[in-house]
């Protein structure tokens, strides 16, 4: 199934407090990436497209964090950090439901964590 792709130059990302995962694609060299920039890091083109991702993907790596880095996050531990290969062709780090394993198909939802909105992946039917 081909993920739906909507061009939206004002797509809001979870890093800015919105409930969405946003990525970029270069119209010239077709490079796809995750960390927001005003240019393509592959060819240098100055007009990359910004898109909202479907939130669907596949678990690439997992780590259950038992030792949180601060008092504020201690009450959340343990929590699962995952890397997910998004269907659109980029990789991102997020939280995941504790039972997730490498290879699982997942879908993103959004939770509050440490005062911020962050993506948390779970099985699509979960």
């Amino acid at each position, binding site marked *: 199934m081909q993920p739906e792709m909507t061009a939206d130059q004002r797509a809001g990302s979870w*890093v800015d407090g919105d409930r969405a995962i946003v990525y970029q694609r270069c119209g010239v060299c077709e490079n796809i*990436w*995750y*960390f927001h920039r005003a240019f393509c890091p592959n060819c240098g083109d100055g007009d990359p497209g910004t898109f909202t991702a479907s939130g669907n993907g596949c678990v*690439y*790596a*997992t*780590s*259950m*964090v*038992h*030792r*949180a*880095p*601060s*008092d504020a*996050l201690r009450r*959340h*531990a*343990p*929590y699962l*950090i*995952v*890397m997910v290969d998004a269907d659109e062709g980029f*990789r*991102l*780090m*997020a*939280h995941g439901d504790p039972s997730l394993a*490498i290879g699982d198909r997942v879908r993103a939802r959004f939770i509050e*964590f*440490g005062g*911020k909105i*962050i993506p948390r992946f779970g099985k699509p039917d979960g």
Partner: protein
Amino acid sequence: MSWISGVGLTPFGKHAGRSALDLMSEAASAALEDAGLERNDIDGLICGYATTMPHLMLSTVFAEHFGLRPRYAHAIQLGGATGFAMAMAAHLVAESRAARHILVVAGENRLTGQSRDNAIQTLAQVGHPDYEVPLGATIPAYYGLVASRYMHEHGVSERDLAQLAVLMRAHAQTHPGAQFRSPIDVDAVLASRPIASPLKLLDCCPVSDGGAAFVISRESVSGHGVRIRGAAQAHKHQHVSAAPSLTEFGAGMSCADALHSANVRLEDIDYAAIYDSFTITLTILLEEIGLAPRGQAGALAAAGHFSSSGKLPLNTHGGLLSYGHCGVGGAMAHLVEAHLQLTRRGGDRQAGAPSMALLHGDGGVLSSHVSMVLEAV
């Protein structure tokens, strides 16, 4: 070509009440003494950084404090790769004739100079400030992610990882300066407190106070007879989210280039000094460099391959995992130990008579790679 004229290393562990400058000074004094040089012989200075003493100009702060007036000085920041990057820079400076004797020095009261949370949060900043750090990720979590994928692809078990922690502890037992010297076995590693799965406490290096230094010279002056034969680097990403691969990080490329620049084959290497911030770090580096087949580093360690009496002695001082990790000085201890082994000054832990050492360090999350070939002449 350049020569390592002398080395200095403090014990690692707790040095309560001592500052970064104190620890740097102690290591620098030891390196000068080992090289048979005086302060006024030193005309080049390369420092690292100390998280407990952030400063824009650490090298000249240290020069003034210690009493040096170098013609060439700067600091380098490259995370865990800093120590070998400093050595490589000093090698290039010596070859360029910009300086004759370059002091390379680092030290930090990383354990007693700050709270445990502070240390963890500072280190976590190698993660992306917007896309990774807000998730509550830590350095062990970044390496835990890497470990989960690597173990999945190459059939490595937690028991395999544990073998490397056991090996480093066995080596540390023979070094009076090591932070952790009580023996451990695989079951103890597996039973240790979970930190960031699959990594447990004993899969992780400790936080330490300590210092290390060496003098790199244009000519051989001290009779120690160790020269830097080649060096190279590779930098393929910063953040683990942006790593193009979690099985090919750049260590193989960096080592191949260093061996090529030294005109040496991997088969000629008879001592290895490899960065071991976590058991997974050491596993991946050994296997990507080609010092162990994929998935076999733990089994080789268990079979004695990397022991002092084995075919390829590895980190005979105990590595970061057991000698300790004081920041920049952590990997420098690997170089100091390689120097002692190449000059047959290893004492009780002397590993035969090695003549060609391969050093490899990484910074960030297997992000920055520096490799060096040292030769006993």
